[in-house]
């Protein structure tokens, strides 16, 4: 193990090398580009034994990954924003074929207006693509989750593709100290690739991805849904195995902080969690009973776990770095589903869009509003657009 100060993009690329990925097809896009550059360097320096395909688009990147995976090799790619949107068509094909492709997604705003900074509106439309989706909070987690992702995705009970999300620039371009895994330890954690399903092999011909009539479609969908429902168990197992071997526990489906005795709880995705963590520490010193749930997995969603937390809390807030126009933040909509029928006040805070800063003061504001709701039992407004000019807070 080497401790190095590296960017999130480097951490992701390094993780894919340690996972012994044998085929990468990728296309550059800001702010993901460094991931594919680093992988190219590893390959050209002979450090990574991998077929690197410099495809002409993200659509082809995902297509090449799908077919390489269907031919029985461990496959990785990375993208962001518009690139993810261009891949959209092929994402449900990867999951429908039950192929354990892993992809780093550097979360960036989707156009228009064109903007290269962090937002989660790029991945939210992929909610129902059938991919397992995790959001990371720091560069160590990015590195570790690339390895965990393969172990989760390749598990026969799951056999689904998975994205590892990292916030644009905040992680992708910011350096942090990261324990970079050595190959021996990585191999112990993630053994040699065994395809979870049939593959394209001239010695044992099979058809993969052919036309399927109504008589069989329901069963295909049912099995895919079943795999997603079983994934949380595998996610927790993999997290536990990783924590045992490496001494780093990033949490499974969720990573709760100071939640047990909390009056109010804020739920965050991605790097806003670190900021909120600081605010919780500060406010706890002031005697305020605030808690934080770092929501790690977006699909599958920890519905039952969050319902239990909501049952105990006096107010629950959700911070969203995305919006489902005319309704609310996507993560808030999920929480309301989880908390259906409960009387606990729930509030949505939408902010940090297109890379707008999310400060300690912003998070404190959210907690203050939640504490007020906990005290009065009433919410001032259900959806608050943080620091938006011309919009009442």
């Amino acid at each position: 193990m080497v401790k190095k100060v590296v960017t999130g993009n480097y951490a992701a690329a390094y993780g894919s090398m340690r996972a012994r990925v044998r085929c990468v097809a990728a296309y550059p896009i800001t702010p993901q580009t460094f991931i594919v550059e680093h992988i190219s360097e590893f390959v050209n320096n002979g450090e990574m034994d991998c077929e690197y395909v410099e495809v002409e688009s993200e659509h082809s990147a995902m297509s090449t990954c799908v077919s390489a995976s269907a031919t029985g090799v461990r496959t990785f790619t990375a993208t962001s924003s518009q690139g993810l949107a261009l891949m959209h068509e092929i994402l449900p094909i990867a999951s429908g074929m039950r192929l354990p492709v892993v992809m780093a997604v550097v979360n960036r705003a989707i156009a228009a207006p064109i903007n290269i900074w962090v937002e989660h509106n790029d991945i939210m439309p992929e909610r129902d693509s059938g991919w397992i989706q995790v959001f990371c909070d720091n560069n160590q987690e990015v590195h570790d989750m690339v390895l965990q992702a393969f172990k989760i995705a390749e598990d026969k009970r799951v056999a689904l593709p998975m994205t590892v999300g990292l916030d644009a620039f905040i992680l992708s371009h910011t350096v942090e100290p990261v324990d970079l895994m050595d190959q021996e330890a990585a191999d112990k954690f993630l053994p040699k690739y065994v395809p979870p399903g049939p593959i394209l092999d001239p010695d044992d011909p099979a058809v993969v991805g052919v036309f399927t009539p109504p008589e069989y479609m329901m069963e295909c969908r049912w099995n895919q849904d079943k795999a997603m429902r079983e994934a949380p168990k595998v996610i927790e197992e993999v997290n536990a195995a990783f924590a045992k071997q490496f001494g780093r526990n990033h949490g499974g489906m969720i990573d709760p902080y100071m939640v047990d005795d909390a009056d109010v709880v804020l739920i965050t995705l991605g790097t806003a969690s670190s900021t909120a963590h600081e605010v919780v520490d500060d406010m706890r010193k002031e005697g305020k009973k605030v808690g934080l749930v770092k929501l790690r997995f977006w699909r599958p969603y920890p519905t039952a776990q969050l319902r239990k937390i909501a049952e105990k809390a006096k107010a629950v807030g959700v911070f969203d770095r995305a919006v489902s126009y005319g309704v609310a933040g996507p993560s808030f909509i999920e929480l309301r589903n989880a908390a259906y029928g409960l009387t606990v006040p729930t509030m949505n805070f939408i902010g940090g869009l297109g890379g707008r800063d999310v400060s300690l003061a912003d998070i404190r504001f959210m907690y203050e509003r939640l504490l007020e709701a906990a005290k009065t039992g009433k919410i001032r407004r259900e959806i608050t657009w943080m620091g938006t000019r011309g919009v009442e807070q």
Partner: protein
Amino acid sequence: MKLKEMPDEELFTRGHTACAGCGAAIAARNLIKVLGKDTVAVTPACCLLIFSATYPLAAWKIPFHHVAFENTAACATGIKRALKVRGKDDTTVMGIAGDGGTADIGIQALSGAAERNEDILYVMYDNEAYMNTGIQRSGSTPFGAWTTTTPVGKVKAGKANFKKDMPQIMMAHNVPYVATASVGHIQDFINKFEKAKKIKGFRYIQVYTPCPTGWRHDTSKTIEICKLAVDTGMWTLYESENGKVTINRKPKMTPVQEYLKLQGRFRHMTEADIKKLQDWATKKWQADEKYAQCKSA
């Protein structure tokens, strides 16, 4: 390999559901006999997918793959790279798509794979329209042809533009092998697939495959139409091996009228339009011949 030496074993078997007289089915059956068992094929959403592999049945005795419509060349790339990783670099990987999946929606992935000189064989079966969705115009549809999106109306009738010259586009990529073939010239077809099988790097073969349903011709006329296409100059049989271009058959320059009159899709054409198409065919042949002369060494 001579036609009579072709193996008896069918790797594209009976029971597929192609229409009678389908050129694409003739192409599939014969090309896989030449390429053999050590082949993996990928096809987009097209006639070939539907008539040859609908779960739980498949006519193929080789691994057969479908992903989407516009990415056949990218998928073939993925298969090839993965086979290389698995030590099966000698396996032939074939992407096989129609003209819509190749010349229109698939051209980006195709161009990318050709530019990277991926070690794959890309076959375009050219039936000159989107037949699987019900005969819509493609970039490969010839001038004047009726399709369901170039209907014969009171103001306009048939396709207003000329056929996209895909073989030339592919030759411009400077890949090891580009050829045109036809299911009506089977020995030439066998020779080309045999040759392509042995070459490393990117190979492109565009096969002329009539569609009785879409072209509105008698199902017994498929081969005759192929021969007329070549004889009239509507379809040039040629090949480019590492840039050296050879014409495989000179047209007799039979009037295009002879080719058109067998097909209902051209029935509405005016004399003026037929002359336009005749001029196009004449000029195209002249250009192809000149090109071959320039590239003869």
